[in-house]
């Protein structure tokens, strides 16, 4: 069963989320402070940590760092009021799997959890793929960065779109993929650029790098 640690200084939010996720088949435990959360992380394994970002004394960012230090495979999802979206994106760069902005609807949490689980499975498949290993050696790529880039379905869709259209602008990608959150799209594109799968020219138009095109073949082979 998937185990989730819910961390929020608002007890009502903790209880509400706990009860809802329990009903959806998840095992949930909550902590109302960063310190309490770290203590639990040290004793037990969790598949997910759902943590508020702004908390007194120990913030969600510190909980993220500790969770990753204790168990790098734990997926951390940041919950944030929209006002601190920049710090949420920074959290993702530090290893958080995603962020959800408050106030949120329940299906957003459920969909995020499901998606991250699927991403994990995909990551595993990709890691085991011989083609991926070969490509990463051939092009001297950071295999973890590549796998991380490709495990997310939105990033895979971006690669497929760029393969189809060869060149695309930010707004076209946003429109074609129906992505409302521009900040998240920006983050995904940056992740792909960092993994050297996508590049951007002087007119800010995106396209696949040579490695990106080869990666498409790998994706097709494992799908």
């Amino acid at each position: 069963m998937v185990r989730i640690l819910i961390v929020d200084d608002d007890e009502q939010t903790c209880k509400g989320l706990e009860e809802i996720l329990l009903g959806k088949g998840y095992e949930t435990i909550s902590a109302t402070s960063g310190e309490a959360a770290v203590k639990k992380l040290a004793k037990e394994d969790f598949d997910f940590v759902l943590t508020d970002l702004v908390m007194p004394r120990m913030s969600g960012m510190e909980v993220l760092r500790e969770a990753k230090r204790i168990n790098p495979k734990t997926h951390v999802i940041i919950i944030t009021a929209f006002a601190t979206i920049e710090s949420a994106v920074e959290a993702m760069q530090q290893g958080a799997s995603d962020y959800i902005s408050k106030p949120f609807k329940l299906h957003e949490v459920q969909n995020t959890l499901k998606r991250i689980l699927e991403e994990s499975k995909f990551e595993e498949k990709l890691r085991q793929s011989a083609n991926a290993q070969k490509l990463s050696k051939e092009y001297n790529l950071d295999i973890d960065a590549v796998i991380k880039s490709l495990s997310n379905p939105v990033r895979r869709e971006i690669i497929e779109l760029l393969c189809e259209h060869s060149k695309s602008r930010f707004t076209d990608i946003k429109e074609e993929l129906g992505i409302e959150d521009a900040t998240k799209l920006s983050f995904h594109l940056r992740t792909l650029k960092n993994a050297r799968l996508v590049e951007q020219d002087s007119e800010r138009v995106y396209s696949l790098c040579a490695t990106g095109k080869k990666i498409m073949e790998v994706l097709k082979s494992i799908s």
Partner: protein
Amino acid sequence: MLEYILPTIAILLLVVVVYAYLDLRRLGELDREYLNLILDNATIAIFSIDSEGDIKSWNRASERVTGYSKEEITFDKLKILFPDFKIDSRIASQETRIKCKDGSLKTMQYSTDLMRDAGGSPIGVVCVAEDITKRKKIEQQLKEYSEQLEKKVEERTRALIRSEKLALVGQVAVALAHEIGNPLTNASLYTQLLLKKARGEGRKKLSIISEQVDAATSTVKKLLDFSRPPEYEFRKVDVNRELSRTLEIMQPQLSKTNVKVIKNLDSVPYVMADHLQLQQVFVNLINNACHAMPDGGRLLVSTRVKNEHVEIEISDTGEGIPKEHLGRIFDPFFTTKKAGKGTGLGLSISHQIIERHSGSIEVKSGVGGGSTFIVRLPIFNKEA
């Protein structure tokens, strides 16, 4: 001796008298000549009429201003030029428009005074008239410039106030989202928990609560979107294409509200724009037009080129906007819709977007006369 001297003296005296008389006459003529010189070189029209209505004097300026020479001018023509003119009374300074001989119109400031003989009896009138056409034109221009300046100052003040309001709204939105985020999240979570177990009437009511919480959540998110400037991506955009696309997307709503769309799109050059932001503006304007025509109507969408700009005009045949609201229509949270029917942010956001595009947006409206929104965007200049 005497019979020779006396006649000589008499002759001499006669000569002196004659010469004196001639001198006096000459002096009189000189005076008259000098007077005529003064009158003819005067820059203002000076003329006189006797009690019989005969034009006794008509200086060169009178001829220059009216176009009528001394030989041509008559009392009747004078009355046409100066309808209030009277030969038996004075007129203090008065303005009038005259139609000159060549048909041109001039503005004159004139006054008349009675001429009296030595006994004090009136023998006619003298009139002094100045062509103030140029002065009036300059005064009018100054008045217009002053009005324009006032209008610009008013607009700039409104823009400043709006900008301050926007900044304040941004701060309030951020604080609100932070403070309201948690309670709204909890309200949503617990409503959903209750919904799982509720049945019948209780479930119905909880569904309503859940919808209202969702609506509040959307409003908070809209407020935050409003306070965070979106990331713009500018490129060459075909305005007609974006308009057509927007109309296509909104077709179901337009059909539902029985609004007939009339397109009048001229061939217009590209503009430099973020096409999604532009579409948002068009959606806002068309939405407002539909709301203004709850029982249906006509929506006229047109484009043209004017003064190096592409002009997009969206007009409706709806209820119109009262004059006293027009100055505030782009202010954040200003709405003429009923409570719950609009946040009052749509036009404010549209205004922000168009300003960001170095364009302008204005509205012309009157109660019962529909509304017309005009968006102006600079033409894309490749060489710039």
